[in-house]
């Protein structure tokens, strides 16, 4: 049992952070929301549509798109192709039309390419478009992951520890990216252990422990919550904050 009786709500347009000790069930919650593992009980509803029981790709079809805790891109392919794959949902090409080589397909391809460049601009990866993903640096890989997810036109974007392994300066740059994504009207559900990031970008923070929610509130309040401090933040964090 990784997640137990968890109830929370993400509001349209906000950045909600999910924090909690290792093994609290954050990734499991992501997996349940995006259909990678079945929830044994309970329900998940997005904009009134029940997601429970749907397959990951169907859930993505409703605009709920995630990234993975362990860096996950299409390693062997060029960066641009990575994003083009992400654009899958936006393509309009029937298999028969493809095989017959109808002109509509070519037009659609051109449109997708434009979209891909747009997204690469957003994450500032235009310069690397031709490189094979495997040759990117770690930080760039994490940007590419987000680019792939953004290409799928999420209305709710779930990010699983996007800045782990980045140094504070790089984290700062990533926070700026999140701000840019927000302006597109995308709701964000964030899992992250970097408190600077969490406190800096979230509208609201939910803290889990052992599969249950132990606190829910604005960042400032969460930081002072004794339960959160005991289970998650630790004394030193509090000391550092003063």
């Amino acid at each position, binding site marked *: 049992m990784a997640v137990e009786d968890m109830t929370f709500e993400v509001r349209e347009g906000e950045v909600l952070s999910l924090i909690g000790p290792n093994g609290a069930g954050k*990734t499991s919650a992501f*997996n349940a929301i995006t259909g990678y593992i079945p929830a044994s009980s309970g329900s998940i509803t997005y904009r009134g549509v029940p997601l429970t029981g749907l397959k990951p790709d169907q859930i993505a079809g409703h605009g709920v798109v995630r990234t993975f805790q362990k860096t996950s891109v299409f390693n062997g392919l060029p960066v641009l192709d990575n994003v083009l794959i992400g654009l899958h949902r936006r393509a309009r090409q029937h298999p028969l039309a493809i095989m017959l080589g109808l002109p509509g397909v070519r037009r659609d391809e051109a449109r997708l390419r434009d979209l891909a460049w747009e997204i690469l601009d957003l994450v500032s990866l235009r310069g690397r478009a031709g490189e094979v993903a495997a040759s990117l640096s770690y930080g760039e890989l994490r940007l590419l992951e987000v680019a792939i997810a953004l290409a799928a036109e999420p209305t709710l974007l779930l990010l699983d520890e996007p800045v782990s392994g980045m140094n504070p300066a790089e984290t700062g740059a990533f926070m700026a990216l999140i701000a840019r994504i927000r302006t597109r009207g995308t709701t964000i559900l964030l899992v992250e252990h970097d408190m600077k990031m969490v406190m800096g970008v979230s509208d609201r923070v939910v803290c889990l422990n052992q599969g249950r929610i132990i606190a829910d509130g604005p960042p400032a309040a969460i930081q002072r919550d004794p339960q959160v401090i005991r289970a998650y933040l630790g004394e030193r964090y509090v000391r550092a904050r003063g």
Partner: protein
Amino acid sequence: MDQLLQHALNAMILGGTYALLGIGLTLIFGIMRVVNFTHGELYAFGAYMMYMWVMLIGANFVVSIALAVALGVLLGAGIEILLLRRLRGADIDTTMLVMIGAWIAMQNTEQLVWSGVAKSIDSPFPSAPLVMGGVSVSWTRLFVFAVAVMLIAGTWVLIQKTRLGKAMRATFQDREAAALMGVRIDRVHTATFAIGSGLAAAAGALLGPVFVVYPTIGDLASLKAFAIVILGGLGSIPGATIGGFILAFMEELGAGYVSSGYRDAMGFLLIIVILLVKPTGLFARKERIG
């Protein structure tokens, strides 16, 4: 009734040999993830070595089995060092292609050396079968069954309990991390392939006297071994064992009561059905996503 009992007994004995074929492959295919097309050739090699020692040189039967297995281990080690070592880290299709090449070359070398004529190997056991009521079974097959069970148990202990076994599992789960633990990666690769090959040769050495030996005997053995390994779940020794018995019962009863023409089809249909119900084989391991 006698017929059913006889079928069940046949299947039991056959299952032991299938399991033996399966565990050798489960090491190489299931753990190393090398689609080992030479498995059947090592099986044939074991049988031919047995023929050489028993029939041409006149060595003692049990000693010959040991020699055949030892030579199989050596040959396996040779194949690994010569063919696979330089392909570390290559993907599954690439190594598979090399193994296909080796399979073709080995099979034809066998034919060149031993000619296409089938050879038979005398067994020291009485040729009159052991009769129990309405059913009977040959002594040679009983012997094979007993040795097979011992080898299977031995392999299981080797993998689960010994240092080498742990090193093997660690190596194939994460080569670099295993190297950091002090495992000699190259040796583990060689040892695993050699042991798997030795088991195939053991199957050949044991079954050679039961059947006859000719260059293509390995083909069907290979195919069945792959099926058994998949049935049981990759890399699982208990899985390969049970898979072997299931396949044997299915074939035997299918041939006995449905149609002998579809005897082999039974086995394959079973595989399709089992994998559709449980796509990771009977003994799957846990994975996580995310």
